[in-house]
């Protein structure tokens, strides 16, 4: 019987689960399809004004670092589950890892390879500042050498001789007692709602764009001309609570209100409006925060139906103000679409490999509502947003809860 465990997905929930298991003495394999762990939350931004607004983003880097140095956790990046056999207490998992041309354990992130890379854009990418592991990544599709040309510039300059073009995809078989699925979510693609102009107008942004802008730049400037925003609109429930998404994404109202507050804090003269259906303001301390926000943020019940660019570069928003029973047009200079949490498109593949069920909305199905970690397969558990929408603290809690279920299995196996 195996006492080690497998966590699929290195987002917040997966990381929380891996840490909890490893701290309890289990040897954990944490596999991640991307070159670095952290998932979406690692690229999010702190939304504090002069005080913390409890977005929980700052708890992520610490957890990632703990995972990175934990003696009981092996991180396999660029990897995916290719097959499964065996059963509870004795799973055999086949893991496929993309070629590690630059193995993270050999890369010291000096960056000399990227400097000499002759392609444009570079075939070697520097890691994002919060990447764990912090190592350079080779893009197969751009690398001259991998395209068959002769170029050894990066390999020759690498001071640790880390780069090896002969790396092949690697198949690994892991024996584990329990499996935690924490593959996370996909952000709803706002292009699907063409009438709102995302992708067409530079100043129509999504919540995710805002996260990245604030994370990188620290301040919001108009993407079109770099000026301070004067009139900002947030549109809620983009990709939530509609025909094809029969659920509330749970995070958008909160992040929108926090962003609204942050923009107002940085630009006291900016006018900020939030368009909504039902505002979700439950949660520890949030009601008071919302009350504060009502003082200088306008809340309008009713969702815009159309966003059009004006000749002066502003955005005309047509919306119905339900509370007033009127249809209006108003111009804004930024429209932020509060995109929601969607199930991963490739969930089906993993579901088939592992033999677990998908629910109606496309998230993995929990066996019983009171234990949303359990799947129809014994020994395989769900953590985080792959099971349904959750914010960061709820994802961490769910990850720990999955770890607890897995721990029970491992204890029985002992």
């Amino acid at each position, binding site marked *: 019987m195996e006492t080690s465990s497998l966590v699929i997905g290195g987002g917040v929930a997966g990381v929380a689960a891996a840490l909890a298991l490893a701290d309890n003495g289990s040897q954990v394999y944490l596999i991640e399809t991307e070159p670095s762990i952290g998932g979406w939350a690692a690229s999010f931004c702190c939304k504090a004004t002069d005080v913390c607004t409890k977005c929980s983003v700052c708890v992520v880097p610490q957890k990632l*670092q703990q995972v990175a140095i934990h003696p009981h956790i092996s991180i396999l990046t660029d990897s995916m589950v290719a097959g499964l056999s065996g059963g509870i207490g004795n799973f055999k998992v086949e893991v496929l890892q993309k070629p590690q041309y630059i193995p993270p354990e050999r890369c010291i992130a000096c960056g000399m390879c990227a400097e000499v890379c002759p392609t444009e854009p570079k075939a070697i990418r520097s890691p994002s500042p919060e990447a764990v592991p912090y190592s350079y990544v080779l893009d197969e599709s751009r690398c001259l050498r991998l395209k068959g040309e002769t170029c050894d510039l990066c390999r020759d300059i690498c*001071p640790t001789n880390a780069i090896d073009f002969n790396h092949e995809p690697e198949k690994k078989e892991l024996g584990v007692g329990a499996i935690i699925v924490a593959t996370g979510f996909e952000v709803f693609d706002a292009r699907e709602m063409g009438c709102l102009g995302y992708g067409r107008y530079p100043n129509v942004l999504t919540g995710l764009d805002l996260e990245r802008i604030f994370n990188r730049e620290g301040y919001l400037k108009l993407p079109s001309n770099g000026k301070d925003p004067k009139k900002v609109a947030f549109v809620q429930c983009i990709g939530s609570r509609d025909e094809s998404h029969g659920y509330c994404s*749970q995070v958008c109202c909160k992040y929108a209100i926090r962003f609204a507050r942050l923009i107002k804090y940085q630009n006291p003269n900016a006018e900020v409006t939030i368009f909504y259906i039902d505002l979700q303001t439950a949660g520890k301390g949030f009601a008071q925060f*919302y009350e504060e926000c009502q003082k200088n943020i306008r809340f309008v*019940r009713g969702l815009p139906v159309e966003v059009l660019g004006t000749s002066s570069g502003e955005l005309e928003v047509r919306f119905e103000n339900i*509370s007033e029973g009127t249809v209006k047009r108003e111009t804004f200079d930024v429209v932020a679409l509060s995109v929601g949490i969607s199930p991963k498109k490739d969930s089906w593949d993993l579901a088939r490999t592992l033999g677990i069920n998908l629910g109606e909305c496309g998230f993995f199905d929990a066996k019983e509502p009171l234990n949303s970690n359990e799947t129809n397969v014994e020994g395989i558990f769900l953590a985080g947003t792959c099971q349904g929408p959750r914010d960061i603290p709820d994802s961490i809690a769910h990850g720990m809860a999955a770890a607890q279920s897995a721990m029970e299995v491992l204890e029985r196996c002992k």
Partner: protein
Amino acid sequence: MQIRIGVFLCDCGKSLSNIDFPKVSERAEKLQDVVHVGLHSNLCLKEGIEEMLSTIRDGAIDRVVIAACSPKLKEDAFRNALEEAGLNSNFLSLANIREQCSWAHEGDVTEKALELTAMAVERARFLKPLVKKDVPVNKEVLVVGGGFAGMKVALDLANLGLRTTLVERGLALGGRLEGFETNPAVPINSMRKAIEENRDIEVLTSAELTRGEGEVGDFSIRIKKGDEELSRSFGAIIFATGYRPEISPGDFQLRPGVNLISQEKLTEILKAPERLELRPKTIGFVLDVSDENCRLPTLSALNDALAVKERLGSEVYVFCKSLKVDSEGVEEVYREARDRGVVFVKFEERPRICSEDGRVKVELNDILLGDEITVFCDFLVAEERIMPSEGTEALSSILKMRIDSRGFCQDENVHLYPVSCERKGIFCVGACRGDLDIARASTDVASAVLSTYELLAPGTAIVEAERVKVDPEKCRVCLTCIRVCPHGAIRLVRVDTEREVAQISDLACEGCGICAAICPAKAIDFEGYGDEQILAEVQAIGESL
């Protein structure tokens, strides 16, 4: 004894070109107590560490200074390496010459790199060894509150082999959920039975906590049960004290009674509808009046609305401002309710509610219609505000833990979420920490159970002994540190049978150093961040070398 400091410079694969390493190396050799300066290119790799280790051994080096990348990356690996070389892992001082020097500035930064190295060297001269030691922890767990969450904690812990004492203030286990229309359904009865049969769970009903002392691994608790007062020791405490529903009369111009009923009362009616004299034609639910903590009431109102439709066949209205659908499955229930004919009426301004001809008259501006409407209901089910359980404040002051601005357990701080509180070994689960639905409460329970298990199951915990330490000779017993420690890790302890002085629990201490900064007698030393170590760094700044 002479200190022998070894300085290891890493140029990160010769990539840090704005630092003149030979110059740094040459000048670092002149620093006090430095006996070796080595220039490396890959200290973070295995071979780099090997190289360093042999130098440490050959040169009889006893303090190691590494000037390289951010300590956040390799500090742990370096500490392990030190141990491998037979040195105490605390004999390490790092200078961040990559992220915070070479990469952060344009132009030549040799001077800064040198100064950062000198700061680390100065600090290294004051390092003292830290000894790891095992401290025993008590494996018994105290669970406060015998509702769903408390019962589940006890059962799950017992499953993992930890013994618990379950203290419930009421006469029996079960809490608030008993008999409620819940979705998902909670098997309270079978849980109760399982607890009765479990020999690892001791149940104390009609019992309350009266005193609590000590820290994680060793809490001493007094429990009053009837006239008896029991003294017990526990390694960890889990709060599952639930919530208190409150109908705020100010929200309605009605007196609770015939027409304005609580959800509890509705549950009773739904259980035995045949007892009703008259089938109510119309039942209304009013929600979201208080604008906060509305998840639980929304969930139960939706479930109740469906049950009313099914069992009484009445017309059902739900009056609300913003329906709180941000919990799992609520949107589905909401849709189902609408499909079954439950009418949702949304308002911006509070409905006006009064009695008329023995019925409840609800007048409000329906924002969808954009018009005033009047609905007569036979019953109006009031929104219950979710409030902290009675005695939460008293309980938290017994255990010296903070409550949040609304009076719930657990302070509002993201680092505590989901279930921790600022004191190690105390956890808060379920509705005692806010407006949590059953699914969230159940997740809470699992995370608290695992954290407790991790803490207590081994029976001992490894700590770095006396990392933060009160010098008993210098302690003036002013109690300042005890009052300011955010983690409740300091208490008075009798030394040499005579004098009481402050002592820091190695296990409960989280290493913030707040006590060391505030001690008026400078009696607290914080190894690694001690006064002399911080001041040594300050002293090295601006020294021309």
